[in-house]
């Protein structure tokens, strides 16, 4: 049955309509991922036409839109220090410092190679896990998802700043912002201040872009020099060209076990619905930092800080298709939209797909593999050109970037209030930079709060406090404490190595940039 379905899928793949649709979608996804906050925009546009499209055109195109985002969303993270999507926050930690040292090409190429290999692990997971999806997912319930979410909050507090207390407070503040609107259990309203706009909560895109992008751009303008000139001023030569692509390949091969275990973690957790990409991003970053021999440069431009989350992200995205296709349970917003998309096209995801549409499942797997490889390859070819953006003067770079960010902030809901949110959190972000407070935990808190709140209430209702006796919960908690202890030791060691300071400071109109406070 499986072999026959797979051969049918191969036959479907090598038809002009599938290949062209996949190519169109992949190009769209490459562009969408490179523009911060617009990763899903292509999919939303496609939904408008979905009803009229043949499934063999619509689905490969949709896969093409989705998969490359996990690759090219590293571009704004490295070049601008702005998260391209929820899954590239950790990449900023080391990607942006590398760009400021003139090594953006190496950083980007490393991210792409990691994405390609991580994506392969994800595809393999998808291929092997789908027939057993129900059994695999039955291993994890609400308690396990709750502790994974808490683990994500805890780790980000430890990795993102020299001052862990400030990190945890910022995370709590992000959780508070996420609570505006309505609760995820019975929908009762809270903190909406009597307004209709806030009933829907604060949008993640204007919030994230405002908090990160505006202060970073202001810093860039205030510095008056290009991103890469920081490194140049410190005597580091700007490096680009094909040699950086091969240099990145050598780096990824040297760190092959890091790539493999990060991808494995990403795939394992990606199969579990409801956890979210942000958790996996930070989990793998934290695990990498706590398990390598010399983590002192993490947060200051350690290439492994890019490799780990990049390989995990692509593995996660592919693995998230397991619960989406097999059980109709989306692993996050992207999968929820894809799920709806399939329904519009006339394909019902869920257990019946495994019996009625197995060849379509294999076609999707093949499309994911091709899109991931094609996207990574294309991005590698363009990595030097993209890296050259870091050499542009702020006067050249700033206006188009500001226009893109502003439009991205409001494109999700077309509401002018999103622009106010964007500006308001931009001001807050600037204040946080000026006063040395980390912003990353705030975003993680914002993203994880609904997950933690939902699974906390589900856990308490279904299990009471007996959930703490579940074996999987105990294992996850042990892993979490172990990771936390290792991270605290690494942090303490880094502080003593640096003589008590947490990093160099730089002149900036807004004060020390966050990079200088990162561990």
């Amino acid at each position, binding site marked *: 049955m499986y072999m026959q379905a797979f051969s049918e899928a191969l036959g479907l793949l090598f038809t002009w309509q599938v290949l062209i649709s996949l190519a169109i979608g992949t190009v769209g996804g490459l562009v969408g991922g490179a523009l911060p906050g617009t990763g899903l925009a292509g999919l*939303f546009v496609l*939904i*408008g036409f*979905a*009803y*009229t499209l043949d499934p063999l055109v619509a689905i490969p195109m949709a896969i093409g839109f989705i998969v490359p985002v996990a690759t090219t969303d590293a571009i704004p993270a490295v070049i601008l220090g702005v998260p391209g999507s929820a899954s590239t926050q950790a990449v900023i930690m080391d990607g942006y410092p590398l760009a400021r040292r003139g090594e953006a090409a190496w950083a980007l190429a490393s991210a792409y190679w990691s994405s390609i290999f991580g994506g392969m692990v994800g595809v393999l997971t998808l291929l092997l896990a789908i027939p057993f999806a*129900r059994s695999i*997912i*039955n291993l*994890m*319930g*609400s308690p396990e998802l709750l502790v994974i979410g808490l683990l994500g909050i805890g780790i980000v507090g430890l990795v993102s700043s020299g001052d862990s207390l400030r990190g945890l407070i910022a995370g709590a503040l992000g959780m508070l912002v996420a609570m505006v609107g309505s609760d995820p*259990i*019975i*929908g*009762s*309203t809270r903190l909406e201040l*009597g307004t*209709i706009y806030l*009933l*829907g909560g604060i949008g993640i895109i204007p919030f994230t872009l405002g908090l990160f992008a505006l202060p970073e*751009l202001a810093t860039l*303008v*205030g510095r*008056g020099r290009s991103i890469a000139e920081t490194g140049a001023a410190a005597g580091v030569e700007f490096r680009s060209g094909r040699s950086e692509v091969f240099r990145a390949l050598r780096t990824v091969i040297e760190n092959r076990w890091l790539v493999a275990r990060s991808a494995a973690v990403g795939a394992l957790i990606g199969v579990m*619905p*409801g956890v979210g990409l942000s958790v996996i991003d930070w989990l793998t970053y934290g695990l990498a930092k706590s398990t390598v021999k010399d983590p002192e440069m993490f947060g200051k431009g350690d290439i492994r800080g890019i490799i780990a989350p990049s390989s995990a992200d692509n593995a996660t995205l592919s693995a998230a298709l397991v619960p989406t296709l097999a*059980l*109709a*349970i989306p692993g996050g917003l992207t999968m*929820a*939209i894809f799920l*709806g*998309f*399939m*329904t*519009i096209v*006339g394909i*019902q995801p*869920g*257990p*019946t797909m495994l019996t009625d549409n197995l060849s379509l499942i294999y076609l999707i797997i093949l499309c994911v593999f091709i899109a991931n490889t094609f996207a990574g390859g294309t991005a590698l070819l363009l990595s030097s050109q993209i890296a050259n953006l870091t050499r542009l003067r*702020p*006067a050249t770079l*700033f*206006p188009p970037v*500001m*226009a893109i960010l*502003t*439009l991205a902030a*409001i494109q999700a809901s*077309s*509401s*002018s209030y*999103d*622009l106010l949110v964007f500006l308001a959190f931009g001001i807050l972000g600037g204040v946080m930079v000026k006063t040395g407070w980390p912003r990353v935990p705030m975003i993680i808190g914002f993203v994880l709060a609904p997950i933690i709140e*939902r699974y906390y209430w*589900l856990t308490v*209702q*279904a299990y009471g406090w007996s959930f703490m006796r579940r074996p999987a919960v105990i294992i996850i908690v042990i892993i979490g404490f172990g990771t936390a202890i290792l991270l605290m030791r690494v942090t303490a060691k880094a502080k003593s190595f640096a003589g008590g300071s947490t990093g160099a400071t730089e002149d900036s109109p807004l004060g020390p940039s966050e990079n200088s406070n990162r561990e």
Partner: protein
Amino acid sequence: MDNRSNTQRRFRRMIPLRSAAAVAVLALVASACGSSDSAAPAPSPAPAPAPAGPDDAELLRQQIEDHFQGETIEFLVGFNPGGAYDTHARVLAEFLPSVIPGSPAIVVQNVPGGVSLNAARQLALSRPDGFTMGVYSSNLDFQSAVGVSLPGLDPRLLIQLGTALNWWSSVPMWCARTDVATSFEELVGLGREVRFAQPSLFPAAAFMDLIDVPFTNVLGYPGVPDVVQAVNSKEADGSGWCTWETFDNLAPEWVVSESVLPVFYAHDLDLLDGEVNAEWHARTGVPVPPMLKDLVRLTDEQLKILELVSLEQFTSTQNIAVSPGTPDFVVGALRDAIRQVAESEEYQAAMRERNRVPGYRSPEEIDANVAAILGYPDEVKAVVRAMFEK
């Protein structure tokens, strides 16, 4: 010289700041112009005089055609893409242009939030010209009718156009894992709280809190697939939202392996159109379980409340509406169009392909259902109102 070069440097730094300010202002203006959530509705156009007789039917048709020719209708959907509401709207949007004189284009726009409250409010504030229609949850009508205060909206002011999707005859069953219990009596006799996973606190689930049964609603699952997963992983003993679609599409193995089966109906089937459920029982061979009112001794007041809760199921539709003040001839045209599409075989086939049950309920029936709810005693409505205000 130093001062001039400092000045020049400061001036050059100002350029991107000024550019940014210009971009931000332009974006604010563009979004304000485009945003519909702050726009006040324009004065409604003067309604055309009603045709005097049958000879004016052609005149009316021409009038409608002139009104819609070359125009675009924005179809608001109160939920995210891909769900039942979205599918309903998108399939309708494919068929409606061919039956509305003037063949306007129809563009679907998702406005999620507040369980379709955002979309309903945006619809209420839109210009009353028929170029904005929306689909929202009839649950808002029900809530409003029992006295729940909905911020910024009285859905009863919206002008109903009808609905083309049958939701009311898909009556949810309360199902349980057969390793836990196979009958209502076994459930009650377990000697512990029985956990039912629910996708939301719907009235029938809230009703269980009013009677003496050891049932606990486990709330917070994002959707029915998550509820199914909770039952399969034994996180819950069952669910109160087991529709035929759940059994057919999301958990076909339940009936095949007899691992999860319906135990009772909470709703009063005597008041409902259970045609679709009856067909499912006949097709699958799953026996029709008993009704709650026959299993538990209920007081007269509880029976009345259960009746109103069942009416909530009966009135469960995806209401399509336009804003108050829309001219009668426009409303009439849109109502006719929706009815024509709902009754067409092509539309019905397209919905069935997407595992949706097509149907039609006229705006008069929808309004009559709301009137029936309003006619219930205040003390009964107060109890049901409290279920929504938890």
